[in-house]
């Protein structure tokens, strides 16, 4: 039975076939043609996948080629003129600058007064009611149609209990309830899985906000204690606003962007 490195041992003892290297070289040369043949003949999904792979490879190849072509030569360096440097004959002139340096906090206060939020998605497609609700028939003869089931993703708080089923008008199915969101920090470019604390505002209407519906563009409040943010005063920040950037009922998850 072959033991240990039997392949290497055989090569050591008997060497390679007389035509081994030639065959190897020829096989590798043939591979090029075979690749081009598959590239031309592959159809359908296979073709698309192959084309994508090949495109990435080609881009990489081009980059490396360019890198190799870069030669380290010495070039003349132009002396840049520094900002703010002035010629000798202008040194003694006095200029007054008129600029308003506003404090950050003042800016914040102004914004709050105006009630405007600078959000990543300012405009959002409005969601119609028949898209949002599904009519459920109830009653002995199934003629009553006052119940509605919400077809979008929702958030209900941890202490949520349903109203008695006979009286509840809006049904939020438990399969569509989400508690966590994938929140991206726009500057760090990192995504964290954070708990949702509540729904702040749904752009489609106040009713949806109170129901807790999560659609694209909804502002939610998330628990950021993981990130370890601290206010200038020294207090730990544990809740921040984020805006939902996808359609959670289609993707099966809530993706949001943190509002900083």
């Amino acid at each position, binding site marked *: *039975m*072959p033991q*240990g490195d039997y392949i290497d041992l055989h090569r050591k003892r008997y060497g390679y076939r007389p035509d081994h290297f030639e065959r190897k070289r020829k096989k590798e040369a043939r591979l090029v043609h075979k690749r081009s043949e598959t590239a031309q003949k592959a159809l359908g999904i296979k073709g698309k996948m192959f084309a994508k792979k090949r495109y990435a490879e080609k881009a990489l190849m081009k980059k490396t080629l360019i890198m190799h072509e870069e030669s380290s030569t010495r070039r003349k360096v132009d002396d840049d003129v520094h900002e703010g440097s002035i010629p000798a004959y202008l040194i003694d002139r006095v200029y007054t600058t008129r600029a308003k340096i506003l404090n950050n906090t003042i800016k914040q206060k102004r914004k709050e007064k105006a009630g405007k939020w600078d959000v990543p998605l300012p405009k959002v497609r409005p969601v119609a009611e028949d898209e949002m609700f599904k009519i459920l028939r109830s009653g002995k003869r199934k003629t009553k149609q006052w119940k509605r089931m919400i077809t979008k993703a929702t958030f209900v708080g941890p202490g949520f209990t349903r109203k008695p089923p006979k009286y509840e008008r809006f049904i939020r199915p438990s399969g*569509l309830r989400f508690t966590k969101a994938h929140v991206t920090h726009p500057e760090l470019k990192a995504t964290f899985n954070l708990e949702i604390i509540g729904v702040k505002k749904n752009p489609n209407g106040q009713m949806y906000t109170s129901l807790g519906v999560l659609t694209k563009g909804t502002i939610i409040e998330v628990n950021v204690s993981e990130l370890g943010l601290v206010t200038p005063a020294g207090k730990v920040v544990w809740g921040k606003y984020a805006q939902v950037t996808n359609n959670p*009922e*289609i993707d*099966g998850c809530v993706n949001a962007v943190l509002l900083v």
Partner: protein
Amino acid sequence: MVQYNFKKMTVVPNGKDFIDIILSRTQRQTPTVVHKGYAISRLRQFYMRKVKYTQQNFHEKLSTIVDEFPRLDDIHPFYGDLLHVLYNKDHYKLALGQINTARNLIGKISKDYVKLLKYGDSLYRCKCLKVAALGRMCTVIKRIGPSLAYLEQIRQHMARLPSIDPNTRTVLICGYPNVGKSSFINKITRADVDVQPYAFTTKSLFVGHTDYKYLRYQVIDTPGILDRPFEDRNIIEMCSITALAHLRAAVLFFLDISGSCGYSIAQQAALFHSIKSLFMNKPLIIVCNKTDLQPLDGISEEDKKLVAEMKSEAMKTVIGQGGEATNDDGVLLTMSTLTEEGVIAVKNAACERLLNQRVELKMKSKKINDCLNRFHVAMPKPRDNKERPPCIPQAVIEAKIKQAAEKEKRQTERDLENENGGAGVYSASLKKHYILANDEWKEDVMPEILDGHNVSDFVDPDILHRLEELEREEGLRQEEDGDDFEMDGLELTPEEKKTLAAIRKKKSLLIQEHRIKKSTAESRPIVPRKFDKDREFTTKRMGRQLSKLGIDPSRAIERARSRSVSRGRKRERSVDRGDNDGGDAMDVDTPNKKQRMLSRSHSRSRSRPPTEVAPGEGFKDSNQKAKALQKARKSNKNRNKDARRGEADRVIPTLKPKHLFSGKRSIGKTQRR
């Protein structure tokens, strides 16, 4: 009993390939067509099936990986330790753990998304959910890519580990590097271990098998061990230490007394003392190798003392086992693998001691009692004190002696070759031993092609014999022809002779044809010739053809008519036959002649029997020819049953047989007939 066959583990695919395989399988094995207008439950089911199918496949494949890789805690501690030494146990467990978590994660993803799919109300929504589910599963697999690659490498290495059975009789060889362990194992087993002058040629364990007293022993060759503290040992040395520690085997400690391995006896003795704790409860034999370079008696005094110390340690193991304390030779042995002296003795000593130890252990165990009760070795009591050696007849002894002498005396071709200059210089004359009628023909060159024909097609060893036979026949034939020529009582004219010859030739051709379709039940068409619609083959036609040749056809027609095997003619024929006895042989010439012709044609001697192979026919031997003839006949059989004249005969006698195209059915419908 677990077979440690690590060669049967399935290949672990790498991350990307894994994803490709599963996704393409999902695409192929689940239905692919779905339209917007289908019922919503059907759409949901369609996509849920895909998600579940993908999850199941991932689960299956990941489970096979996790199950096939051995659990280091469940296998024999020898293998457990060996695998720990080779592939770090923690790393190994972590990798397998990652695979396990991936499997669970994928299960969770599938569950979540199937739950969500139940609320899908449009094709687009369901499709997006399915895409998201599959995408997440594939991301999980992408993340464990490095673990998969690591496991694949481990699997490849494990497949090449020698299959050592930890429970059977084993002999372990250990010692410093380059002392001759691998050479020893090469000598007693068929293991082909690499032997080189540099140290650490053997880098892993090798196993070979050898026989002693009708039992099979495993011999394990280990890499050399250096004298170092335990913590400093590298992986290769740890392999041997593991083997020493966990296998119950007879240990052969090899000592190179010539010092040509580069290490002195003192160093080797130091190693011995540092690992002697591993030799507990194992039959230990100290083997002094390379005695051809330096005999044991020729070493210095200190070295002798060291060797004696080692021997006393080894003796302790003998005594510890309850063996005889007197068995001096069983503990310290000398040998030389180069000259092969003492090699067999060492092997026998090791195997004997191991066997004794194992037998003792078995006798002491509890299980032996129920075995002992079951068998009883009967030794026949000797009748008398007469010695009865084996009886070899005198002739056999003499023959043996003669054979031995002959073997020595006979000069083989090889010896001739060597005498006359070797392989390249002397070429043996292959025609030396030809058996020919005339010895001068031996060196003749035989032509291969003559007159445009292959000579070998015409070669026949019995050709002269056949020629004689043929001539004899021809001779007979000549007489017959002579008879015929005086058929009508007068000589035929040359033209008549020519026409007669032409007729005879055509007739012989026809006869040959007919002989091919031999008239047996199989080959004769069972369906009568009523399908000869054209009615070509009539006596009238024959008459016309004969008159074309210029001959009176009337007698031929008569003869043909009388010969035909039709019912009407039987009586005539028998009458004819019956007449033979009483009738004049001269008078009723025709039937007599016909009879003779019949009998002659049926029993005409062939120049060859049917299964004999003529040189040009292309058959290997007569068996093959017989088979070919049989096959030809067999193919004829079915054709004849359909009344087809040959392979290409596709005549349909009636294109629309009535029973297939008309008529009512008693019950049932007439949709198919």
